[in-house]
């Protein structure tokens, strides 16, 4: 049988306590706060949460001592909070887009489970989620309609392409690529197309 006691011991001693983490956060520089604010704007789309709510939720989880997420002492707390936001955002998007219950398709695949109460969204909710993701993506493409280089970067990032693959789709020099990427970043971090789930 494996002995997990050492792991437990190590994990408990190598993380900031809530008090220590709070003190670390209070000593953030202006630029750390600004980066966190921009990261919240980058990560909130499609989560159904406002950027500020995402940041507050990350703080709540990071400062919760029991059952929360503890910041390892060797990790910059500002980076850690960013990673907590990313994790919350991923889960929030999954929650929002949960699978439409099998019973709503009219096909009897679930047997007795079909009649049990289900916390999954209604077909209407699932359809709204579906449409909303589509609307955000449409709005993104619309934002850069007159800027093919920026649009290529948006599409490339969404597809998970490398910079070379993006430049292959829309021919541009490295400098043009960097400038276009900066335009995309500046626009989206100023105002990501509004998430219709928040309207």
């Amino acid at each position: 049988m494996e002995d997990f006691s050492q792991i437990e011991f190590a994990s408990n001693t190598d993380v900031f306590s809530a008090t220590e983490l709070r003190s670390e956060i209070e000593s953030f520089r202006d630029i750390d706060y600004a980066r966190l604010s921009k990261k919240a704007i980058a990560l909130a789309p499609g989560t159904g949460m406002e950027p500020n709510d995402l940041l507050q939720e990350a703080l709540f989880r990071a400062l919760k001592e029991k059952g929360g997420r503890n910041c390892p002492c060797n990790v910059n707390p500002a980076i850690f909070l960013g990673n907590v936001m990313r994790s919350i955002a991923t889960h929030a998007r999954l929650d929002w887009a949960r699978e439409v219950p099998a019973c709503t398709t009219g096909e009897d695949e679930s047997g007795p489970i079909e009649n049990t109460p289900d916390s999954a969204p209604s077909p209407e909710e699932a359809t709204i989620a579906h449409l909303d993701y589509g609307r955000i993506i449409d709005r993104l493409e619309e934002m850069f309609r007159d800027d093919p280089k920026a649009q290529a970067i948006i599409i490339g990032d969404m597809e998970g392409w490398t910079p070379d693959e993006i430049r292959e789709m829309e021919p541009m020099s490295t400098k043009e690529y960097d400038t276009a990427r900066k335009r995309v970043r500046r626009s989206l971090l100023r105002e990501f197309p509004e998430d219709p789930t928040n309207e």
Partner: protein
Amino acid sequence: MSKDQKNMREKLERLSNSLADEIDAMTDEEFESELEEASEDLIDIANRTRTLINNAMDNIGRQKLISARAGYEQHKSEDHDNILQWSHERKQKLIHQFSQDDNDFEQKLTLAARNEGDTESDIDSIIEDLIELGIIDDKGNLI
């Protein structure tokens, strides 16, 4: 989740994560310079975010305090149920109730009091004996 829906969610997630990665990858100078180019005020953004974070931390602190206080109150009320946690006066009163019909017991108590032996530990010791003998339970009820 339909394939299409999953696909759109993943696309949005990749774009969001890519933007967040870029923020991490920028040096302080690059980040500051981009804000300047976008006519955004670093100090203003920082101040708004600091206020948001401080308010959130204060709320979390208040919630923790409320929850700790509730826990303490519960603990206190549970403790007060236990006879050994009663006040000295309350314990004395209980003991003297027992001694009213028992002259020997009353005499022992009087002697103990006279010898300044009627201390908290003496009273506790008597109570423990009463519990052990099955005369009272740990809440002070007669069995």
